[in-house]
């Protein structure tokens, strides 16, 4: 006598639903694409990934600085090297990000249903500014004292001085090493995933200024 088991009911667990939605939104061939459209072969498309590279150096050098502390980054040769590495990677991050922003602005990169790509990029830029400012006031030297006393007047003038006290090193340091970097990295991850989902914005076609403004399917 044989016993047949009832067919297994389809699982409706939340992990399955999340997986199905994630794969539907970003199938593997889109998430880790091995080919890009021909129009991407231009130097102006390089500045996004240059910004990402600079951000990786910022996070890496910043992690080492946080581990070792101000005495190390001010008074040892290798500490000053990592301090400079952190500073100049930030300078390059903003330089690359501004050129990336200019390029995307003149491409009208919000076309073709890419408004969220544009918005997350713009918000990343805005959040990166206080992230850098809190770094300047966390240096633990006369430079940081000068900048914090000047910047607190700016905070007071816009009515947020009670919430963000730039003279409070503990507050500024925790903002700089945890809260704001986490926000920047999270926004960058969302931004990159949205780029993967929608595809890189195509350039305008000559003689057709409205091309690409209505399609939500990315580059054709």
């Amino acid at each position, binding site marked *: 006598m044989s016993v047949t088991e009832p067919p297994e009911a389809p699982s409706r667990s939340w992990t399955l639903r999340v997986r199905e939605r994630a794969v539907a939104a970003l199938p593997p061939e889109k998430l880790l694409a*091995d*080919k*890009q*459209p*021909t129009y*991407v*072969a*231009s*130097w*102006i498309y*390089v*500045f996004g990934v240059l910004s990402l590279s600079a951000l990786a150096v910022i996070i890496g050098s910043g992690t080492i600085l946080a581990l070792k502390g101000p005495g190390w980054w001010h008074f040892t040769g290798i500490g000053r090297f990592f301090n400079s590495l952190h500073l100049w990677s930030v300078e390059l991050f903003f*330089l690359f990000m*501004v*050129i990336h922003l*200019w*390029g995307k602005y003149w491409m009208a990169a919000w076309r073709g249903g890419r408004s969220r790509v544009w918005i997350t990029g713009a918000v990343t830029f805005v959040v990166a500014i206080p992230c850098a400012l809190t770094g300047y006031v966390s240096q633990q030297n006369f430079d940081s004292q000068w900048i914090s006393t000047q910047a607190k007047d700016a905070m007071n003038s816009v009515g947020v001085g009670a919430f963000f006290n730039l003279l409070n090193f503990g507050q500024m340091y925790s903002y700089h090493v945890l809260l704001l970097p986490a926000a920047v990295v999270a926004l960058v991850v969302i931004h990159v995933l949205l780029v993967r989902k929608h595809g890189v914005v195509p350039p305008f076609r000559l003689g057709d200024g409205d091309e690409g403004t209505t399609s939500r399917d990315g580059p054709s």
Partner: protein
Amino acid sequence: MAAVFNLNHHASYVNFHVGGGSTPFFSFSMSLSNVIVIVVMLIVFALAIALPFPHHEGAGTQQ
């Protein structure tokens, strides 16, 4: 270690005004180092658009 550039002096500023008198119509004031950075960014931006990108036939692109 000495700095590459001597920073032990007051910053140089670029100033110009549009309209005379005690309240000019437009006033611009920016440190020379910031002006240089912005000019460098504009040059890099122009070069990124103008310079040809190296092409490798059939490598990683689709029509």
